[in-house]
C-alpha cells in the first residue's frame, strides 16, 4: 500500500517521546563556553558610558565584546536598519550592547553585572498613530541612508515601508452607497512561545564558522549572518538539529552572530541560549496592528467598495514588515467580492522590540478586522451575518485586488456548506449568554525554492538529503517522508531524511508559509522520477530486460510489468549499482511559478501574489459568564481545504494546534507595551498560553481539491488554521453579549466593559 494518505508514524516520534532527541539547547561540544548578552534595559536613550574593563578581569571570563569588537555596518532582511551592537543610541528594550563568553553561566552573569552601562533615557516612540505624524520624533534619524536588502520601496520618517493601491471608482461607489459602515480594529502582539528558547552553539576554525541551530531556515542564517559579519556565505556552515517549535520566530537571523563572534574571539566553542524573558523580547513576535475599514454597501447587502488603512507595529527594525504590508491588499479582496478598494498599509518604526513572522503572518489581525466588520455591516442592515457572506462570495475565475485570478474560488462556498452540514447556523449558539460566530479566509502556500538529493542505499532504504527543516509540524517527518516512500514503493520507516547542513544539503527556503510538504514533496517527486530511470537501467541489466518494461512494486521491489513473479529487491539493485561504480541518486527541485498579476495595481507591492491558494471557514460557539466575563469555547468547527491529505494525523495536528494558537490570540495572550516602550508581560506566568482545559474538541472537515502541481495534490496546510480563529470567536462573543468588541485579545474585563457600556447605552435610550 502506498504510504501517502496513511497514518504512518512520524519518523522522529520515538526519539522525542523517549527524550533522546537532541535539540540545540541539549547539544554540547568539548570545551564549550557559555555566553550571555547584555541588552538595553530601556527603550530609547543615549549611551553615555559603557565600560567593560571590570567584566574582562573576572576569572573565568574569556571575552567581552561590544560594538568596538564587531562589524558596524547595518544588516536586515528587507531593509538594512539593524546593527549587531548598540554603541551610541539604544532603540528598543533588549537591543544587544555586549556579549560575554565565560566558563559557565554563573560567571557570565557576573560579568554582565560588572559591565558599567549608563544610558540617558529619552521618551520612546510607542503609539502607532503618533509615530506616523509629521512631527513625531524619529526612531531612526538616519533612515534615508538605509539600504534595501533587495529592491527599494516607498518609505519615509517612521514609516519603514508603505504600500498603496488607489484604483478608480472607489469614491463614486461610496457616493452611491445605501450605507457606509466604518470600523476600527486593533490587535495586540503575540509571542510565538515555542517551548525551546532560541539557542546556538558556534565554532570557529580555519576562517570558517560552524553554527549549530534549531532554526526553521538554516540557509537564511547563513546568508543573513554573512551579510551581518561582512563575509562570504560559504564561510559559514549552519547545521540544524531538532527544533523545539518556531511558528515563524526562528526564520530570521537572531542570536547566532553573537555566539559566532565570541567563538572567534576565544578560540573555543560558545553556546548561547536565551532565557525566557529575553526570548520574549527579541523573538520578533507578531506585530500589533490597527486596521481601519470603510465599506460602501447597497440595500441588498452587496459590498460596493472599500477603503482600508492598516498600521503595523514593526518595532525598531523593519524585519519582514516591508513584505507583510502587501498582504492587506491581497486579503482585502479575497473570498468576497468587495468592489473597487483603496488600501494604504504602513509598517511603522517604534522604540519597541522588533516584530516579525508568526504563523499566518498579518492574516490573523486582518481577517479579524474584516470579518468583525462584515458582522457590523450585517447588523446595520438587519441582515443575517452568514447570509451577507454567502451573498458576496467570489466565484471561480474572480480576481484578487492585485489582478491575480482565483480559478477555484468557489471552494469557499463548499467550505461554508461543509460547516453548515455539521453545525447548522440557525441552531448554533442558542441560549442565554451564548453566541455563534463565523469567519473565512483565503490563504497561500509559500512558493519559494526547495530541493533534495534522493538516493537508494545498498540495503534498499531510501536516503533524502535536504535543507528542509522539521519544525515539529510533521511536514518532513511525515509529509515529505511519506511522499518519498510512496515514490519508491517502500515504507515510511525505510526513508531516512538528513538534518540540514548548509555545506552539504541542497537549498531550501525554510519551514515557512505552509510550504514544506508542497514544495519539498514536489522536489521529491521530481528526484524520484529520475531515480527510477536509473533503478530501471541497473535492474534491466540484472534481469536482462528492457528498462521500459520495469516498474516499482510496493514493498521495495522492482518488477516486470504484467509479470508478478519476476522481480528483484531495491537492495539488490543498489548493491549491484555500487559494485558497478554507479550511483543511485538524483536531485529534484521545485518552485511554484508566480501567478499572473497586475504590477500597476499598487506601489510598494513587494509580496505581490498568493500562489496555490486554499479556502477555509471557521465557526465558533461560545458562552460568556456575565459575572466574571470569562469566555468558554463550547464548539469549534473548521472546514479546511488541503489539496490532498498526506497524513490525516499530521493534518489534524496542524488544524487543532493552529486553532489553539488562535484561541490564545483571541482570548488569553496579552503582550502589552507600557508608555516606557517595555513589555509588561515578561514571563510565561504573565503571558497566559492556552491549556488543555481551555480547548474544545475541534471538529474539522478536510476538503480535498488536489493541486495538479502539488505532490499527490497536496497544498499548504499549517498556517490557515490560525488565521480566522480570532474573528470567529470574537464574532461569537459579540453575538452572545450584544455589544461590539473590536480589539484583541478579549480578556474577561473587556467583555465586562463592553457589556457595561451596552447596558448604559440601553439606559440612555429608555
Amino acid at each position, binding site marked *: 500500500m502506498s504510504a501517502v494518505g496513511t497514518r504512518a508514524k512520524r519518523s522522529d516520534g520515538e526519539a522525542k517521546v*523517549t527524550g533522546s532527541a537532541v535539540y540545540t539547547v*541539549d547539544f554540547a561540544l568539548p570545551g564549550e563556553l557559555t555566553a550571555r548578552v547584555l541588552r538595553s534595559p530601556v527603550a530609547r536613550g543615549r549611551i553615555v558610558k559603557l565600560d567593560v574593563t571590570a567584566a574582562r578581569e573576572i576569572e573565568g571570563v574569556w571575552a567581552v565584546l561590544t560594538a568596538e569588537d564587531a562589524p558596524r555596518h547595518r544588516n536586515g532582511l528587507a531593509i538594512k536598519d539593524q546593527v549587531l551592537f548598540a554603541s551610541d543610541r539604544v532603540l528598543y528594550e533588549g537591543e544587544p550592547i555586549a556579549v560575554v563568553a565565560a566558563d559557565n553561566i554563573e560567571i557570565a552573569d557576573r560579568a554582565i553585572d560588572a559591565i558599567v552601562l549608563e544610558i540617558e533615557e529619552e521618551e520612546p516612540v510607542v503609539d502607532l498613530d503618533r509615530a506616523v505624524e509629521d512631527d513625531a520624533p524619529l526612531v531612526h534619524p538616519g533612515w534615508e541612508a538605509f539600504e534595501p536588502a533587495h529592491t527599494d520601496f516607498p518609505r519615509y520618517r517612521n514609516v519603514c515601508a508603505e504600500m498603496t493601491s488607489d484604483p478608480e471608482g472607489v469614491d463614486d461607489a461610496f457616493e452611491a452607497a445605501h450605507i457606509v459602515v466604518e470600523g476600527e480594529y486593533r490587535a495586540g502582539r503575540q509571542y*510565538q512561545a515555542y517551548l525551546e528558547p532560541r539557542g546556538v552553539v558556534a565554532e570557529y576554525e580555519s576562517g570558517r564558522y560552524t553554527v549549530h541551530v534549531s532554526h526553521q531556515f538554516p540557509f537564511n542564517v547563513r546568508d543573513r549572518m554573512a551579510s551581518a559579519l561582512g563575509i562570504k556565505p560559504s564561510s559559514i556552515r549552519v547545521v540544524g538539529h531538532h527544533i523545539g517549535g518556531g511558528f515563524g520566530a526562528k526564520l530570521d537571523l537572531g542570536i547566532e552572530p553573537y555566539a559566532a563572534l565570541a567563538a572567534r574571539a576565544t578560540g573555543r566553542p560558545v553556546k548561547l541560549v536565551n532565557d525566557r524573558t529575553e526570548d520574549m523580547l527579541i523573538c520578533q513576535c507578531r506585530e500589533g496592528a490597527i486596521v481601519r475599514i470603510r465599506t460602501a454597501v447597497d440595500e441588498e447587502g452587496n459590498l460596493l467598495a472599500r477603503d482600508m488603512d492598516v498600521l503595523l507595529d514593526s518595532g525598531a527594525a523593519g524585519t519582514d514588515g516591508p513584505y507583510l504590508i502587501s498582504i492587506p491588499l491581497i486579503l482585502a479582496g479575497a473570498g468576497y467580492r468587495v468592489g473597487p478598494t483603496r488600501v494604504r498599509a504602513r509598517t511603522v518604526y517604534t522604540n519597541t522590540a522588533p516584530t516579525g513572522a508568526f504563523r499566518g503572518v498579518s492574516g490573523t489581525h486582518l481577517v479579524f478586522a474584516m470579518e468583525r466588520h462584515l458582522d457590523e455591516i450585517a447588523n446595520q442592515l438587519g441582515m443575517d451575518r452568514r447570509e451577507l457572506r454567502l451573498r458576496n462570495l467570489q466565484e471561480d475565475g474572480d480576481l484578487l485586488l492585485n489582478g491575480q485570478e482565483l480559478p477555484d474560488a468557489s471552494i469557499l462556498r463548499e467550505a461554508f456548506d461543509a460547516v453548515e452540514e455539521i453545525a447548522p447556523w440557525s441552531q448554533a449558539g442558542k441560549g442565554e449568554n451564548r453566541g455563534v460566530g463565523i469567519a473565512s479566509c483565503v490563504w497561500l502556500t509559500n512558493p519559494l525554492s526547495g530541493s533534495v538529493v534522493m538516493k537508494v542505499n545498498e540495503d534498499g532504504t531510501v536516503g533524502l538529503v535536504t535543507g528542509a527543516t522539521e519544525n515539529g509540524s510533521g511536514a518532513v517527518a511525515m509529509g515529505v517522508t511519506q511522499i518519498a516512500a510512496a515514490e519508491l514503493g517502500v515504507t515510511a520507516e525505510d526513508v531516512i531524511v538528513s538534518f540540514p547542513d548548509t555545506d552539504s544539503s541542497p537549498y531550501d527556503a525554510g519551514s515557512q508559509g505552509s510550504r514544506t510538504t508542497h514544495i519539498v514533496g514536489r522536489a521529491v517527486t521530481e528526484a524520484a522520477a529520475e531515480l527510477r530511470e536509473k533503478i530501471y537501467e541497473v535492474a534491466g541489466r540484472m534481469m536482462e530486460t528492457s528498462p521500459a518494461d520495469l516498474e516499482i512494486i510496493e514493498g521495495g521491489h522492482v518488477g516486470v510489468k504484467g509479470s508478478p513473479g519476476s522481480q528483484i529487491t531495491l537492495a539488490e539493485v543498489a548493491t549491484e549499482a555500487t559494485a558497478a561504480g554507479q550511483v543511485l541518486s538524483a536531485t529534484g527541485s521545485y518552485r511554484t511559478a508566480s501567478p499572473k498579476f497586475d504590477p500597476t495595481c499598487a506601489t510598494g507591492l513587494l509580496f505581490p501574489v498568493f500562489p496555490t491558494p486554499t479556502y477555509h471557514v471557521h465557526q465558533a460557539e461560545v458562552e460568556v459568564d456575565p459575572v466574571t466575563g470569562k469566555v468558554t469555547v463550547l464548539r469549534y468547527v473548521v472546514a479546511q481545504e488541503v489539496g490532498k491529505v498526506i497524513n490525516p494525523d499530521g493534518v*489534524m495536528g496542524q488544524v*487543532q494546534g493552529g486553532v489553539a*494558537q488562535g484561541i490564545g490570540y483571541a482570548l488569553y495572550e496579552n503582550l502589552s507595551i507600557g508608555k516606557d516602550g517595555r513589555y509588561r508581560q515578561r514571563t510565561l506566568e504573565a503571558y497566559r498560553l492556552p491549556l*488543555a482545559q481551555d480547548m474544545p474538541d475541534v471538529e474539522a472537515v478536510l476538503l480535498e481539491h488536489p493541486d495538479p502541481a502539488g505532490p499527490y495534490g497536496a497544498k499548504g496546510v499549517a498556517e490557515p488554521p490560525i488565521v480566522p480563529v480570532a474573528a470567529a470567536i470574537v464574532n461569537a462573543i459579540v453575538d452572545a453579549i450584544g455589544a461590539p468588541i473590536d480589539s484583541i485579545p478579549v480578556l474577561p474585563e473587556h467583555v465586562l466593559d463592553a457589556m457595561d457600556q451596552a447596558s448604559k447605552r440601553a439606559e440612555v435610550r429608555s
Partner: protein
Amino acid sequence: MILSLVVNGRHVETEFPAGRTLLEFLREQMSLTGTKEGCVEGECGACTVLIDGRPIDSCLYAAHAAAGREVTTVEAVGGMYGLMTPLQKALVEAGGVQCGFCTPGFVMTLTALLDESPQPTRTEVQRALAGNICRCTGYSQIVQAVEEAIGAGE
C-alpha cells in the same frame, strides 16, 4: 556537598553544589537532557520528572531535596533506557508529538496520572495537564493518546 539518590533505578552518590536545581543536576551532571528547561518558573512543565512516583517541576526543586529519593526521568520511564511504555507509543501513534520539546514533561505527568488513576476521564486528563504547556498540538491528540493507551492496556 555530597548528593546521594536513585536516578532511573541506579544509585548515584556525587558531589553537587547546594542551591542548584534538580533540573541542573539531571541535565548537567547526569547528562540526562531528555528533561527540558522551558521557563525556569514552573509554568511550562517541560522539566517534569517523578520523585518517588509523583510529578514535580525539577526547575524549581532543589537538587539536594531529592536526597535519598528515587528520581525517574523520561529516558527510563519505560523501565529501561529506550524502552517505551504504552503511553509513549500511543503519543507517537496518535499524533500527540509535534516539536517534542514539551513531550517529556507530558510523558511524566501522564505516567503519574495513570499510576494513580488507571482509567481517567477526559476531564481528569485535561485537569492533570494544567501544569504542562504544549504550543504545537492544541492538546487533543495528546488526550486521544491517553485514551488509546488506556484502551491498549485493557
